[in-house]
């Protein structure tokens, strides 16, 4: 009988404990809850330890495979099969006139966005002049046409000469002078005007980097593609096309 009663009392303990915890109020309750919280933390820890003992863990001490010498460590090797097909793909693209650029698709910018209508005339009715609202590049020795005849106004505040160009492999950024705008993806009109928006391919002066061709001649111009919106940031960030 004693054992039966003991067993039943122990099983009732959980219910009684929870009844007490719910009904207690005041300072007594605060102390009790604090104590109980500490107990529960310990219980959880022991349960977790038991669980870990049962599960198998990955052996962290094993050295990874694929040992390479020090000179190959920082290089991600291209598999040999890929190299050949890459060569063929490049030849095809060259034929088609398509070039691989870091940003292949950019949002085309309409005329209303890039050019702002300037009204002129005694009654401000004539509306044939346009002002460029984006950053642009004008070459050295640029002189404006006579104001009466100029159709496109490029404000001096939005003219830039230098771009911050990042070398994709070296991960270093250089401030290089711009030589010209090669292609603006939105419209050939913008290319001739020299408007620089996101995705424009510009030519920069890289003589600072010290690149040399196979024959020993110094490379001084390379293409880079603009990666930010320069009219919002106030600077031109570009990535070098190697």
């Amino acid at each position: 009988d004693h054992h039966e009663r003991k067993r039943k009392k122990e099983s009732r303990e959980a219910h009684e404990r929870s009844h007490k915890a719910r009904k207690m109020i005041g300072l007594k309750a605060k102390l009790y809850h604090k104590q109980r919280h500490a107990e529960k933390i310990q219980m959880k820890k022991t349960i977790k330890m038991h669980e870990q003992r049962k599960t198998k863990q990955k052996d962290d001490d094993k050295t990874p495979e694929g040992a390479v010498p020090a000179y190959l460590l920082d290089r991600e090797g291209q598999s040999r099969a890929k190299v050949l097909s890459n060569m063929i793909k490049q030849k095809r693209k060259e034929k088609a006139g398509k070039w691989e650029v870091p940003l292949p698709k950019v949002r085309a910018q309409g005329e209303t966005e890039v050019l702002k209508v300037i009204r002129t005339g005694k009654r401000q009715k004539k509306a044939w002049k346009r002002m460029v609202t984006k950053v642009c590049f004008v070459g050295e020795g640029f002189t404006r046409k006579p104001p009466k005849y100029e159709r496109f106004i490029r404000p001096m505040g939005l003219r830039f000469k230098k771009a911050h160009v990042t070398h994709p492999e070296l991960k270093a950024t250089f401030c290089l002078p711009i030589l010209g705008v090669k292609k603006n993806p939105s419209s050939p009109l913008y290319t001739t005007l020299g408007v620089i928006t996101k995705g424009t391919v510009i030519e920069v002066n890289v003589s600072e980097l010290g690149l040399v061709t196979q024959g020993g001649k110094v490379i001084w111009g390379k293409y880079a593609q603009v990666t930010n919106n320069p009219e919002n940031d106030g600077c031109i960030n570009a990535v070098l096309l190697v």
Partner: protein
Amino acid sequence: MTSENVERLLIQFQDENGEVLGSPFDVPLDITPDKLQLVCNALLQKEEPVPLAFFVRGEAEVVSSLGSCIQTLGVETEQVLPVVYQPQAVFRVRAVTRCTSTLQGHTEAVISTAFSPTGKYLASGSGDTTVRFWDLTTETPHHTARGHAHWVLSIAWSPDGKKLASGCKNSQICLWDPVTGTQIGKTLTGHTKWITWLCWEPLHLNPECRYLASSSKDGSVRIWDTVLGRYEKILTGHTQSVTCVKWGGDGLLYTSSQDRTVKVWRPKDGVLCRTLQGHAHWVNTLALSTDYVLRTGAFEPATATINPQDLTGSLEEIKEAALQRYNKVRGSAPERLVSGSDDFTLFLWNPAEGKKPLARMTGHSALVNEVLFSPDTRLLASASFDKSIKIWDGRTGKYLMSLRGHVGSVYQVAWSADSRLLVSGSSDSTLKVWDIKTGKLNMDLPGHADEVYAVDWSPDGQRVASGGKDKCLRIWRR
């Protein structure tokens, strides 16, 4: 043509540094190099005749006869013609032709291999974290040195051949005794990223072989005191991984890094002397003109025997011998340094004198992986990922020839001790032995199952060891 009708010519013998030997000589145009050798040796008045090579005006080599050489050059015959003579190595290393054994034992790719300075021991480091010592007379495994926790990336013998240092990818350096295969001292820790290169202090500066320089991906170079087991100096200054460190014989330390610069330091006080700039991409490798003589220390390859021996003699004697050999190879000009880079070019520097490079060597169409001066410092070999090896003049940096034949990137090259042969290992799993005089392939050594990562020619010229991705170490002999 009768002997009276043959034109005669005035020539003046000069040595490489420009000093004249004797007075101008009147010789017939059809004189051959052998006869020139006799004359020159007589003038030099040495006990044994030394084999010599002759270069007209220092440029074109006299191969068949003086006349044909002059015709190709188009030199006028009125004036006295300077002929530069160059002593070649007295001993002749024979090309390796066959693989005598495949040493298995490593359980992962063999990443680095090196012969000891006398050629007595062979050590190899591998991706299975062990360094193995091999017995060369029986070509069987000798010891396995366990102690590293990650791939053993670089190994370096001390110039007296008594210690081997190995660096691993977990940035630890261990020292081993080749005789017993056990670790000497404790593991040197301190770097935060993997070790890229190890280099001992030259023997003639310190015959005890106490100091060791290590470069790491974390951008610092540490000079360790191996006796006390701790670092002596840290040289910081590079902003990116240091790819190579070389301890020069004149008391300067040269380091190359991925931040496109080469820096010159004074190891005594850890001061940066000079920064050599000019490369446009990572600088992968460095080579010193006195590399080979610093590596072999007091051992003279000409005195090698069939069974390699340890260095004998007291510390003073060894130091004297090493110093003599070093001065002979160095000559009067200071050490030259060559750096090879990912921008496909090499620069020839005179680092002790100035910041400006002596020459920029272009021509490779892919990155340059290794550069090596020949043991007599006259030639320079550059191995590149564009499957070719280019030979350049070691003094001026002028392009001499291209060795083509590999079908995969050339990873490493090694010169024979007499500077006449070059062996190269590549990713196409073959080794090729090239004859420098003719510029042609001497021997093709296939046999590896996968890429060949490391190649070394023993200083006594008898064996070539190569290890690669197929986990085997192969020894090649004649």
